[in-house]
């Protein structure tokens, strides 16, 4: 029976995870941590899930909680860390996305220092991989990460946090499992953990394919990872993949459009001079990230249960998740 601490439980994925853990007979107790006051969606689960207001970005908050009697009584033996899956992670956290890296480092160090905590599950993103034209189309877990000093700040933060958790994969008492999830799509049609979609830029002449996954499937994968006997890194994605141009959520439209360097060199220079060239056009806007989920299937037993469809035409196009029958 697991006793689990879930960070950022107020996020859309945390919400799904709370429900999944509540119904999981193998989980005895859940401590959900979040920066906001107790969210109302936890009310039906109070028999099993306790909410703890906790700002992980502040070291003393975490220290105070970990040394409190409340934590001792909870006898937490597993941690599920969901740092980047809030709607707007950069806006919600005072220090921006990079502070989530320090938060992850701090949490991992604290978990390692406490032998009672046996398992650590970290939700990462497939955007830690490096998409290039020469790369594989279907990325496996052993693909190199996309180290780029001038790359997207969000992606760099993701990679840093991923590497911190990878450091505990071997030779550590903490059984660490890293789930690298594709673009997460919520029931409301919002996108999570996808920097290229969040920033919205589009580059003419490119329409990369992206793996997508339902937030409910991610919650299921996290539960499976919690119980898994074999720690490691696993890609998590649904069955469907979509071109970038089809993925528009209900609120966001396509962002600024830029010409590729090879086509409009002169125009790009003019754009740059006018300060109109977006800063976030990276290889993610050109090359796809489609992931191979075979390992998650074979080891964790993960099988996506929800279909994701794109409905409508043109600007009315929107995403839907559908229960698999």
């Amino acid at each position: 029976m697991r006793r689990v601490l879930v960070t950022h439980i107020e996020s859309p994925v945390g919400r799904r995870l709370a429900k999944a853990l509540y119904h999981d007979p193998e989980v005895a107790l859940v401590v959900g941590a979040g920066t906001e006051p107790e969210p109302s969606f936890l009310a039906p689960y109070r028999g099993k899930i306790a909410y703890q207001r906790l700002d992980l970005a502040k070291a003393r908050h975490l220290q105070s909680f970990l040394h409190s009697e409340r934590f001792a009584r909870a006898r937490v033996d597993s941690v599920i860390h969901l740092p980047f899956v809030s709607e707007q992670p950069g806006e919600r956290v005072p220090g921006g996305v990079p502070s989530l890296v320090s938060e992850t480092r701090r949490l991992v160090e604290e978990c390692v220092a406490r032998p009672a905590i046996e398992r650590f599950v970290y939700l990462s993103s497939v955007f830690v991989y490096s998409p290039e034209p020469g790369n594989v189309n279907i990325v496996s877990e052993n693909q190199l990460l996309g180290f780029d000093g001038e790359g997207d700040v969000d992606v760099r933060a993701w990679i840093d946090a991923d590497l911190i958790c990878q450091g505990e994969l071997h030779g550590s008492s903490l059984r660490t499992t890293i789930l690298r999830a594709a673009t997460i799509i919520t029931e409301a049609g919002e996108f999570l953990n996808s920097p290229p979609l969040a920033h919205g830029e589009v580059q003419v002449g490119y329409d990369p394919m992206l793996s997508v996954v339902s937030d409910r499937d991610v919650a299921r994968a996290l539960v499976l990872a919690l119980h898994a006997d074999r720690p490691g890194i696993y890609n998590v994605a649904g069955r469907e993949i979509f071109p970038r141009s089809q993925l528009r959520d209900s609120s966001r439209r396509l962002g600024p459009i830029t010409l590729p360097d090879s086509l409009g060199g002169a125009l790009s220079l003019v754009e740059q001079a006018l300060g109109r060239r977006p800063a976030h056009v990276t290889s993610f806007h050109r090359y796809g990230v489609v992931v191979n989920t075979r390992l998650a299937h074979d080891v964790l037993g993960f099988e996506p249960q929800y279909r994701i469809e794109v409905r409508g035409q043109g600007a009315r196009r929107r995403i839907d998740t559908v229960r698999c029958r």
Partner: protein
Amino acid sequence: MTSDEGIVGDGPALGSDPFLQSDGTLPYLLRLREASLRMVTEARAQPQGRERELPSEPPDLGPPIPELPSFDDRDESAGALDRLASWLLTRADDDRLAQIFAPLDGRPYDDFGMSPRVARRALAFFKLIYKYWFRVESSGHAFIPEKEGAILAANHGGLLPFDATMVVADGILGGKPPRLIRTVVDRWAGSLPFVNVFYARVGQVIGSRDNVREMLGAKQLVLIFPEGMAGIRKRAADRYVLQSFHLGFVEESLRHRVPIIPVAIVGADDQAPILWDAQPLAKLLGLPFFPITPTFPLFGPLGLLPYPVRYEIAYGEPFRFHEEFPAETADDPHAVRYMAEQVRRRIQEMVDQRVIARRTKRT
């Protein structure tokens, strides 16, 4: 009061806390322990192993969402291109496409980004080229496996890759049964705007070993031009002379235990004879080569269009190296080079036979 006090500790935000005694009669933890002991006893009675740990049924995560129309229904307002494709393709062609795309099970894209809808439109266009521009004749379809994966190794030529397109069209229109042949294209093509999208949507894949592994693992037919870029940049004086082969296709054949089918393509080397490769200009423009042909750059981009030459595609008897050698042979460069040379010679023979037959026919 410090800022910590409002966040950590038994604050008001905690509500009905499961750590605290609820009614004063029985401590919550005691009740929880009793429940845990009961669950442990029940769990021990259940079978051990991963089946026990993983819930067989997913937890109910929300109310069901009404069923949506299938992917086919969303194209009610089919565009002009779709209507044109319907006009150009026969019922038999559509049946062949349906057979090919059946494994997609209604998904709008496959794992490499191929769209059945775009592929159908492209086939309608290339069918015209296949039948009326290049007047393709093909033979040896019996050597193509009906269901299994294989590597098709072909000679390459003709500036623009119409040879690959014609082999793919031939696999759909002339295959018995129809099969989708997936061409491995140069990595450089993957960085070209628009071209990369078109290639992906019609089922072509960027050349990397992992991609080939994925495709062969899925029992697909993979068309490889072992000459690489050297094949299409060779000058008119060298046409139908096969350049040296890259060895990767033999290694992948041995590793993935699939046969190599030699494919001879005659006609491609005549479609745009290259008189000179202007390398200095190519370097300046960042291109792998800059061809000078009788029509390019004289007539601008139109000069790149292929001449209406007759195409002949011949599939030869497969090489089954994988049945004679273990997979480890792929790591022996001498053996691999020898095998690649065998394939090269066979394709050269097939090409020579057909080129001579053509010349004899003309005279």
